[in-house]
């Protein structure tokens, strides 16, 4: 469902972020993206989200060439991708329910559908009882669950998690991983950029390691490795 074909990205300031990247990810996979800071992980994610354009090569998503998609086409792609961030990015003045509903509201979903869908997703992430709480009344793990709920609510085919456990203690991190695994088991593809070597090593999933803008390792049931 995702295919990078000879993708190179050179930024305007002549920083070469990616060189000749070839990656292919199938539907339903759970992929860890590892590598040191500045290796090119963020650029890979930005390319998928169409925040930036590749300098060379082609990029496919859901069997469609999205290399050249611009402006009006970008929201369409983003609606198929759920984003989960390290810092949660919740709206502090909205309740848990409203934060999740917001994602549906801004793509113009009818109220009836919002009222039906949001409780289902909240119960899936185990937050039904916290629906009317505000983000500052929640623990870090709970906040990350809200952000996952928000990423899921529009039924994306891919979830990109950028260091989702970076701000969490190990126990909470594992709860989040359990949740992501569950979501993956229901068929959603997951791409997770992370520095958490323990998690990567014990999950035994596909690992793509990037360094200096190149894929240095891509293996099924991989490990975090010690290259960096």
């Amino acid at each position, binding site marked *: 469902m995702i295919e990078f074909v000879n993708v190179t990205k050179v930024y305007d300031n002549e920083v070469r972020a990616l060189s000749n990247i070839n990656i292919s990810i199938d539907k339903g996979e759970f992929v860890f993206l590892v590598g040191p800071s500045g290796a090119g992980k963020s650029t890979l994610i930005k390319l998928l989200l169409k925040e930036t354009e590749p300098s060379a090569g082609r990029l496919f998503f859901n069997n*469609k060439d999205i290399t050249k998609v611009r402006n*009006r086409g970008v929201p*369409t792609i983003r609606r198929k991708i759920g984003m989960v961030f390290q810092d949660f*990015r919740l*709206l502090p003045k909205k309740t848990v329910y409203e934060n999740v509903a917001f994602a549906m509201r*801004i*793509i113009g979903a*009818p109220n009836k559908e919002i009222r039906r869908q949001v409780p289902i997703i909240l119960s899936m992430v185990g937050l039904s009882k916290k629906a009317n709480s505000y983000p500052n009344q929640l623990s870090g793990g709970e906040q990350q669950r809200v952000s996952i709920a928000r990423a899921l609510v529009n039924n994306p085919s891919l979830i990109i998690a950028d260091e989702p456990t970076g701000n969490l203690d190990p126990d909470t991190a594992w709860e989040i991983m359990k949740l992501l695994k569950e979501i993956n088991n229901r068929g959603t593809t997951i791409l997770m950029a992370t520095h958490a070597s323990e998690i990567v090593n014990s999950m035994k999933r596909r690992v793509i390691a990037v360094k200096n803008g190149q894929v240095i390792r891509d293996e099924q049931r991989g490990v975090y490795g010690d290259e960096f």
Partner: protein
Amino acid sequence: MDKLSEMNREVCTAMNFRNLSYMIKQGFVSMWKNRMMSFASVGSVTAALLILGVILLLILNINNIATVTQNQFDEVVVYLEEDVDQSDTERIGDAINEFDGILSVIYQSKEQALEIMKQNLGENGYLLEGLEEENPLPNSYVIQLKDLKYADDVVMRLEGLTGVEDIRYLKDVLDQLMTIANTVRLGGFIIIGFLILISIFIISNTIKLTVAARKREINIMKYVGATNGFIRGPFVVEGMLLGLIGAVISIAVVYFGYKYLFTVLNEELYVLFTVYLVPYYKIFQDITIIFVSIGVGIGVIGSVLSIRKFLKV
């Protein structure tokens, strides 16, 4: 690719009424939150439009004077000296008829001239009663020109005739009027252009406050796949509202101010004078259309400028 464009269409049609009410609500809310800056924005739009109003009224009135008196401009009046006798008068008339560019030459005796003057004064005609005995008006020829361009030539040749006391024609006045109109227009447009730029700047700064306060929200909206139009909506509505309020205030001030001035001039001065002024009820529609479109335009441009940077995610 077909499927992709189909999805794009869905994105577009999702901009429905639900979204519209959301945008309008957000626009009002944030306008109230930054009421100090909103006040400044409305003030600057109002100031720009008020000055535009004054200049517009000046130009409209100058144009009006020009049209009202237009039929006098292709008319040259030759006043004859008091002691010119019948045959000399006829001789002068014949000479004028020979000139190029003459449409008609009509002799107007001093008695006729007085009668016409009385008619022009209408109700106030009694003021001229008693002048018949000692009529101060001269005999004259009223010359209609084929075109205004012959005026200079005809006047020059008239000056060469004997028995002519004075020549009156209004091309000079017209020229002056047009020079004034052009100066007012040019100066006005420069000042207005400047003021509009300032208004755009102030409005865009006002809306930047709202944008900055909702940076996080905009960021999330971008990642979830909101269209730029949807994100921009509330800010554009806010800008439009600011511009619209400024427009409504200045329409009211200009309209009622001019109405007052017009009424006062009508009462204080002779009715004759106000023929040259554009009646106040005739300007309302034009002023409304011009002010609302400029006010709303300023608001939209200001808001689009202020949010452009934040849409690049």
